[in-house]
């Protein structure tokens, strides 16, 4: 089964009230890839993630995991939401430990081990001192960190993250980036990571997608009801733990290339032109 991609998105389009949001989205992700997705606000990144999760069903096209069509969310795909979505009735410790508890056989020895693991993750996200607080007692950034720990602790096959570091201060953000890269390497995870920070996207990813509605169909002008497409799909070289890379000229040119391709509504590219840029990553 080496040839089956882990995740395959096949010609997917999606509508809200007859308005096309996503149009002919196609890509395959292999095990072990770290894909980052960037795109203008409102382009449909979260929507695409919901389709992959199985929270919504695609109106056309197919999405499959390891060859099987995606149905409802399950343990294969971990998720960190844009809005943090912690369980309000559980404190931080219980929230983070939830995934472990749901699968444990409830004996004392095991419980102690799980508790240890949970505290390990809590300290990774600097929430050890806040273990017994409830979500309503947390600041925005603390909620986000708790949500990250909650998803990481069960080490899912594929981890979907929607702007997970958006509310974090620079220090913790750096630490989180290192943490996620660590786990990715150690556990051979596959990550699908949405961010609005282009530098983060390039720094973290082994592959970057740009999802944007700013393109032209054929030679004509932009059509009225066109959905976002993937305008760039580029392999990147991995560079774990070398924060220095962020200052290299390569890096800067990459950032400005992406901004030009995906984010400027005035500069729209032809789809044809794009198609040649779509790396074949199989």
């Amino acid at each position, binding site marked *: 089964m080496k040839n089956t991609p882990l995740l395959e998105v096949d010609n997917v389009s999606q509508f809200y009230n007859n308005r096309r949001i996503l149009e002919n989205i196609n890509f395959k992700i292999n095990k072990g890839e770290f894909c980052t997705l960037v795109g203008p606000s409102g382009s449909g990144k979260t929507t695409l993630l919901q389709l992959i*999760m199985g929270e919504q069903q695609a109106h056309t096209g197919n999405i499959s995991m390891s060859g099987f069509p995606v149905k409802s969310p399950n*343990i294969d*795909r971990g998720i960190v939401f844009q809005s943090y979505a912690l369980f309000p009735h559980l404190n931080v410790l219980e929230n983070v430990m939830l995934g472990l508890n749901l699968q444990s056989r409830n004996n004392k020895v095991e419980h102690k081990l799980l508790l240890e693991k949970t505290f390990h993750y809590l300290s990774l996200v600097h929430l050890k001192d806040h273990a017994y607080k409830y979500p309503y007692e947390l600041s925005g950034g603390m909620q986000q960190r708790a949500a990250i720990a909650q998803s990481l602790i069960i080490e899912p096959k594929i981890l979907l993250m929607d702007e997970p570091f958006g509310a974090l201060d620079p220090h913790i953000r750096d630490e989180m980036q290192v943490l996620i890269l660590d786990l990715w390497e150690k556990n051979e995870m596959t990550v699908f990571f949405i961010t609005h920070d282009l530098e983060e996207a390039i720094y973290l990813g082994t592959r970057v997608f740009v999802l944007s509605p700013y393109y032209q169909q054929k030679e004509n002008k932009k059509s009225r009801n066109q959905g976002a497409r993937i305008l760039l799909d580029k392999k990147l070289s991995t560079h774990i733990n070398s924060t220095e890379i962020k200052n290299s000229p390569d890096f800067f040119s990459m950032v400005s290339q992406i901004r030009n391709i995906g984010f400027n509504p005035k500069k729209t590219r032809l789809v044809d032109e794009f198609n040649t840029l779509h790396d074949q990553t199989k």
Partner: protein
Amino acid sequence: MLEKIKQLREIDKAKKIFLATIPFIILLMLYSLASTLRHQDNANDKILPSISQMADAFYIKAFVKDRRTDQYILWQDTFASLKRLAGGIFFAAILGIIIALHIAMLPKLDMLLSPFLIFISMIPPLAILPIIFIAFGVNELVKIMLITIGIFPIITRDLVLTIQKMPKQLITKAKTLGATQAQIIYTIILPQVTPRLINVIRLSLGMGWMLLIAGEAIASTEGLGYRIFLVRRYLAMDVIIPYVFWITLLGFLIDKTLYWISKNKYHWYCKT
């Protein structure tokens, strides 16, 4: 400085109690006035007895052994009624939460049961007593069931609405954390709706009392509703009003207890 915060809270509490008593005092004064006026007109008026008349009547029911039954009537009635009320509400809550959880989580069950549930909720139970008697007999059970039948549709439907308004992301999150359908229902949804369950119970307590009293009027030998309907035969408002006041007080205390539980045990609920 933390002392100061505490002090402020105490003052707040005192103010709260002071303000809360005002409407009660006004009500009492209005009543006394109306009662006095009626008694000036007709010294034997029974409809608005004076406070002292009611106090006397209440004293007899509460602290003088009844000749016939050799018991303290008020406590006997209270005990009988509270048992029924508790039973009725307990069954309604259990039934309500079980149905609501499953309706809200299983779309097919929702389609199957929701319209029927709405239908059921509109049936005035007192109008179909004969059928209820056939189903439950004429005994303690039927009084409890009357309360249950009247209240559980409200509880169920309210909880379904509550669950449906929960963020879907939480369900998704739970699924990705490996929760089974049962775990979602019992470890994710159930604890989150429990405080709302408490609130709905608080809201339907009034209806519960009403049904209890109606049920006790139908066939019984003790209970607060029984006594009220019995003495109604001779317009003994000097017994009825204190009894209603007593019922209301009990309801108030139950409500406050439930509120206290929800505030302390489910403190996170009010904050979200």
